[in-house]
């Protein structure tokens, strides 16, 4: 049946595979870059991880991370890279939804949208408190 469709499962597989790999490379590159700045800034300081406190990490939301990444502070760049890493599998879900739509598999468009909605609800920060 695959030949009657313009887009096949095989195309989707290849596309998704490439997206995942590229996403990991880019985000890890950002993390390494930010990590070097971070060590340059804080390398000689003492670590303080023995006790968890909500206020120790300042960049906790998507908005705050985007607003601060261009300061090129180490912590901000690392958080930005980590956020890109978190976004990679989410982008994969988005791409799969589009692909299933083009493949006219509407059941899986709906299933993909449900998964996306769950993650988006979490991204809005509603579950953290």
């Amino acid at each position, binding site marked *: 049946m695959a030949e009657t469709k313009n887009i096949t499962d095989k195309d989707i*597989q290849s596309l998704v595979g490439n997206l995942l790999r590229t996403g990991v490379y880019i985000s890890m590159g950002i993390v390494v870059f930010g990590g070097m700045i*971070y060590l340059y800034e804080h390398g000689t300081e*003492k670590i303080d991880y023995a006790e968890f406190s909500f206020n120790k990490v300042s960049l906790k939301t998507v908005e705050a991370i985007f607003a601060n990444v261009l300061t090129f502070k180490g912590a901000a760049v*690392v*958080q930005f890279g980590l956020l890109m890493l978190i976004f990679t599998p989410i982008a994969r879900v988005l791409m*799969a939804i589009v692909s299933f739509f083009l493949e006219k598999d509407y*059941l899986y468009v709906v299933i993909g949208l449900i998964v996306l909605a769950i993650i988006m609800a979490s991204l809005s920060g509603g579950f953290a408190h």
Partner: protein
Amino acid sequence: MSVLLFTLIVLIGAFLAGFLGSLTGLGGGVIIIPLLTLGLGVDIHYAIGASIISVIATSTGSAAAYVKEGLTNMRIGMFLEIATTVGAILGAIIAVYLNAAYVAVIFGCILIFSSIMTLKKKVDHTTLDYTSKGAKFFKLNGSYPLNGMVKPYAVKNVAGGFFMMLFAGTLSGLLGIGSGALKVIAMDNIMRLPFKVSTTTSNFMMGVTAAASAVVYLHRGQIDPGIAMPVCIGVLIGASVGAKVLVNAKTDKLKMIFAVVVSILAIQMIYKGLSGGF
């Protein structure tokens, strides 16, 4: 300890965790958490936040390869992701209210369970019995390449697999691990998938599942750049090297040794949790 020294130690530790985790199939998260908490005195909340980030990195990296080979059943993955993401968020929320000591004890138990699972001989449960209505409705039955041929398989007990995945997702979110062992049980034993399909599909889902709980942890301030940075870099490099070595390595003995080491770590986590060390 200075930040620089801490970063170097964690980088090396995370590399080893990723390397051994990929060789034995146990995953990097289950080793990095005891290393950070027992070894370096890091609060378990930070350890879990860093670990979940490393889970995203490694699973996404290897999922890329598996998806292209056509081993992953993307429909099963997407369908079960509803269960794992709901579970992951649930787990991350429970973690907020649960005492760190309990988290440590549960972690230890899952660690022991997972290491036993890696030692157990796998029994092939695959079937060509296409009677499951759920599998038909959700178009889950599939096929995969094996020795140059295309081998079909039928999926059973979709509801059972779905609920097991909800549980696996909850533990993943609660403990900051991929919980691959549980996911594979749901797919091998309950849904009757072939190993190659279940392990790769479990890997495929792990990234989204971990992303769902990572977001909760981010908002909670549990993802500290100073810890997450060396952890995810080290684990990812270690896992990539491990995957390359895996092709030629005899892993039976290694798995055995590793299971013992991991169980000792697990017992320490449980002991420290029960004795109020967290």
